[in-house]
């Protein structure tokens, strides 16, 4: 198992190095094929790890493998000894499985997508490095390794968003993602320091019993991690980088900014779930932030014109659902939604990539339409993804989303009245989701064509189509296959729940109520979908007119609640002012000080230089004077 774990980390790193160093000399599809081969092998290794773990008894389902001692600092109570190693348990293996699985498909897709791009080797090298970082994040034996991966995926995200660095907007978006994530990282670091002070260790395996035994921990400690998770998983108020991150290539959006990296925040919360449970009101914060983000991002998504931005905001919204689940203590449900979301959101992004590919880079929904005739396969695949996102039975998203809403309602039913509000927000978000998904699908594929007549859209090449088909199947069966709460069919929960903390407020609904809620959610989703499809399905002109001449709220939605502008006014501009102040200070005072010092010493040097007149006698004279002085002193 050690070898499997080591290979799981070594392969992507080695491939990243090979492609980074020699990729320039590899031509055509070779870098992509190599990278895909690596990713597929990683998936194979992940499956091997999964089978191994499944063979173990439930209470001993973990493998700890240390490769070497990384650092050993301090002594006694303040000792911090960290190994480089992996910690395999159902949680990390589940993540590894879908990272490498969905990752492989996206690698495959990328082969065709990047075929005509300049510097595809660079792209694949970054992608391999990303896979490595993500696996370190998930598999790392201790929190410091997790943080290493955390930063690594951030770096790769930055590099891949800015892949087209010649474009100002891409470079800017890369910087924005990087900087916003730094804020979250501070929280992570504080949490890490605090944890170490509290437990004296950062190893996942060692922390597990300690966290379980801890009756209470400071809520702020857990919130430190939550701030980190907010940064990485694009929650309020740190979500602003994710929509801009869509400047990167579309497969990157699918892999990093939808399926894997953004779920790292959820992973962190799940990994530390006992800590959150013990941290008093910290979980409530998580739940409310998650619900608010879900609703907020869902609202913004209503009026976006860029197809990728719609998907980006829907990602933010779905991540909000996951945090809502975490906040309710339904950690397993969060993991469930992470997985189904990885399937259908990767599918939607890859599908939108195929559309963009077919339209030679066009991303504006208003310039699409009627594409189902040109791209029937893509349309079919994306429709499945859209149903899954909208939460329509029996597609994947329905089961996971419904489970989360069910937990919220159950807790309300059990007496926590405020949970009804969370449930309401969730249901409203679900309606919005169905609506904007229908709007996107209809604008893109339905109605009459508004495509530039010079373009002749064509279906995506084979590797892209294969990836789409596989993800389509997963989006259909991924939900029901992994769990259907109402029927008590929950293989994923049985697998993953033992390593997660138990819910602080367990609650169960009567079966009838449960079915009723499910039917209600289903009805709402279908209804919202129907409305969206109807509004945008007919003649396009009135719909566009409605969006353009909308009243105040719609304008705010189109302006994305002006969050970026608020940030600019509250943070960016004052900082810039401060920076300019510092610059002036530096120029006038600091530089002046140094330049003055230089000038002073030059002046002194001129004086001293005069003494060096080259006349031997003068040197001799002064030497004698020195001798006389020394003699005088010696005689004292």
């Amino acid at each position: 198992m050690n070898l499997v774990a080591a290979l799981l980390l070594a392969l992507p790193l080695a491939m990243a190095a090979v492609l980074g160093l020699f990729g320039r000399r590899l031509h055509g599809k070779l870098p992509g094929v190599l990278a895909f081969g690596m990713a597929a092998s990683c998936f194979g290794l992940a499956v091997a790890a999964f089978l191994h773990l499944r063979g173990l008894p439930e209470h001993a389902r973990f493998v700890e493998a240390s490769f070497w001692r990384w650092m050993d600092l301090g002594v006694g109570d303040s000792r911090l000894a960290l190994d480089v190693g992996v910690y395999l348990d159902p949680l990390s293996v589940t993540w590894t499985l879908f990272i490498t699985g969905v990752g492989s498909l996206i690698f495959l897709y990328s082969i065709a997508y990047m075929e005509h791009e300049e510097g595809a080797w660079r792209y694949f090298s970054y992608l391999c490095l990303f896979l490595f970082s993500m696996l370190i994040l998930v598999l790392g034996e201790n929190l410091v390794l997790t943080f290493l991966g955390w930063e690594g995926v951030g770096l790769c995200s930055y590099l891949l968003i800015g892949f087209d660095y010649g474009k100002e907007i891409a470079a800017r978006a890369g910087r924005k993602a990087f900087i916003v994530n730094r804020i979250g990282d501070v929280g992570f670091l504080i949490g890490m320091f605090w944890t170490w002070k509290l437990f004296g260790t950062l190893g996942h395996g060692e922390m597990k019993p300690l966290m379980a035994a801890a009756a209470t921990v400071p809520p702020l400690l857990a919130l430190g991690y939550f701030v980190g998770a907010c940064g990485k998983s694009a929650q309020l108020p740190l979500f602003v980088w994710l929509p801009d991150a869509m400047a990167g290539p579309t497969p990157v959006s699918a892999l990093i900014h939808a399926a894997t990296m953004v779920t790292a925040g959820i992973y962190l919360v799940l990994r530390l779930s006992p800590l959150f449970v013990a941290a008093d009101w910290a979980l409530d914060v998580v739940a409310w932030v998650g619900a608010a983000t879900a609703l907020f991002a869902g609202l913004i998504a209503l009026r976006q014109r860029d197809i990728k931005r719609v998907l980006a905001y829907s990602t933010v919204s779905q991540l909000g659902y996951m945090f809502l689940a975490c906040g309710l203590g339904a950690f397993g449900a969060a993991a469930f939604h992470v997985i189904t979301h990885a399937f259908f959101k990767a599918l939607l992004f890859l599908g939108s990539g195929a559309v963009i590919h077919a339209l030679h880079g066009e991303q504006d929904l208003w310039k699409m339409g009627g594409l189902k005739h040109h791209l029937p396969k893509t349309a079919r695949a994306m429709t499945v993804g859209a149903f899954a996102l909208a939460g329509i039975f029996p597609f994947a998203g329905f089961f996971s989303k419904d489970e989360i809403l069910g937990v919220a309602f159950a807790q309300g039913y059990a007496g926590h009245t405020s949970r009804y509000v969370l449930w309401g927000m969730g249901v409203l978000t679900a309606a919005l989701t169905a609506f904007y998904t229908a709007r996107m699908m209809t604008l893109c594929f339905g109605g009459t064509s508004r495509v530039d007549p010079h373009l002749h859209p064509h279906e995506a090449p084979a590797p892209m189509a294969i990836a789409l088909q596989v993800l389509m199947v997963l989006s259909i069966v991924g939900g029901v296959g992994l769990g259907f709460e109402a029927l008590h069919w929950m293989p994923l929960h049985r697998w993953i729940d033992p390593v997660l903390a138990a819910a602080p407020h367990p609650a169960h609904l009567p079966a009838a109520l449960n079915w009723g809620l499910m039917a209600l959610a289903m009805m709402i989703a279908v209804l919202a979908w129907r409305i969206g499809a109807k509004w945008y399905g007919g003649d396009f002109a009135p719909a566009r007119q409605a969006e353009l001449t909308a009243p105040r709220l719609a304008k705010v939605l189109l302006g994305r609640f002006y969050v970026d502008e608020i940030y600019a006014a509250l943070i960016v501009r004052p900082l810039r002012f401060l920076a300019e102040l510092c610059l002036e200070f530096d120029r006038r005072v600091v530089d002046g000080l140094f330049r003055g010092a230089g000038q002073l010493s030059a002046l002194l040097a001129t004086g001293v230089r005069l003494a060096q007149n080259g006349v031997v006698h003068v040197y001799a004279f002064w030497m004698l004077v020195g001798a006389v002085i020394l003699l005088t002193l010696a005689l004292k």
Partner: protein
Amino acid sequence: MVPQAWYFLLSALLFGLGVAGFAARRNTLVMFMSVELMLNAANLVFIAGARDYLPARGSACALFVIAVAAAEVAVGLALVLAIFRLKKSVVADDVRELRA
């Protein structure tokens, strides 16, 4: 016996003359001669000081001084020759290449 102090006084005078010659004269050859005078004065102190108790070792040390002086003169005069070839002069003030 002549008191050693007399010898020391004489040595100091010779040394002073050497210093004066070195500091005041511009002719490099004469400056070298002045240095020889100073070395001789030092030797005189060696021999006079060692007269009563360490005559043999005093002489040995003075011998070393003479050897060092010989080496110094050889190199010094070679330098004078080299400088003369370059500058057509043995006057120290004409060589000012060290001027900053």
